[in-house]
């Protein structure tokens, strides 16, 4: 019982943490991964709250499709929130390959 509660609190804290991370992170790719983590935790929470249908939808849409469509956009535009960071990061943080 108590383990469930601890587990639940960790999940909730992780979710809020991931949300904050996504907002403050300058590297948009990491920020998007953060939203993916939110969706993943959300899907577990939905399952625990006895909503398996919603959990399935959130897992497919939130985790997979939303994340990928964000990544496609980032690939088509820029990876960093402001130009300054991009110069600082230089060559080492170029997108995947290319």
């Amino acid at each position, binding site marked *: 019982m108590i383990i469930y509660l601890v587990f639940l609190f960790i999940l909730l804290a992780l979710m809020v943490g991931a949300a904050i991370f996504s907002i403050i992170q300058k590297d948009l790719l990491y920020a998007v991964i953060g939203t993916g983590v939110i969706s993943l935790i959300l899907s577990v929470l939905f399952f625990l709250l006895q909503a398996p*249908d919603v959990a*399935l939808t959130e897992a*497919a849409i939130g985790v*997979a*499709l939303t994340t990928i469509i964000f990544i*496609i956009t980032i*690939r*088509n535009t820029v990876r960093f929130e402001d130009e300054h960071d991009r110069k600082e990061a230089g060559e080492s943080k170029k997108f995947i390959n290319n």
Partner: protein
Amino acid sequence: MKKVLVLLLLVIFGVYLADVMFSLEFGRQVFTDGVRDFYLEKSPLDLKVSNTITAIVVNFRGFDTLGEVTVLFLATTAMGGILYKKRHAAGTRSVLFSSSKIVMAGSKILFPAIILLGVYVFIHGHLSPGGGFQGGTIIATGFLLMLMAYYDYSVNHNVLTIIESLAGITFAGIGLMGLVKGGSFLENTMPVGVMNNLFSGGLIPLIYIAVGFKVGAELTGLIYTALHEKD
């Protein structure tokens, strides 16, 4: 300055919202005269659908679902309009990277399994968790996997359009059929069968299958449109 102001406003708003929300008793909200009991009673007894959410999504509030698939359809249409360019460079992929052999072989094996899972999920929508949306999105992730793994993998856009249109017409047509038969729009006019059988629930599985095809085609088309735009 603006940041601080917005933050302050949000904190006030959040505290107020939380204050109001706390007067709800978590996990003890039971409505004596709400719509909930009606759905939970009619779904197994009248419609013979064991998954109440499916019954609500497809039958009781089926109109919402019709609107929802329209929203996806419109999103695809709007995206096409927004990203439209006069001289369309056909077949240019924006995300160009080659995957390793293992990924390619693995996704080839996984792809049919994912599609099968998706089909299973939307065919059994009235019996178990899942349904048209879930199955459709699972199918779309299957195509997504192939698009990611094979850089020259392409989906026939015309086929997608036709599937999408036909599924949409099926949904709206089933709805209008109820009207033609003298009932109301989207009314369940078919015999409902025995509960927890695959062939039960009357029109509900049929509609959910149409939704599954439509959502699958729409989401695949959406990703495809986004993926094939290169500036």
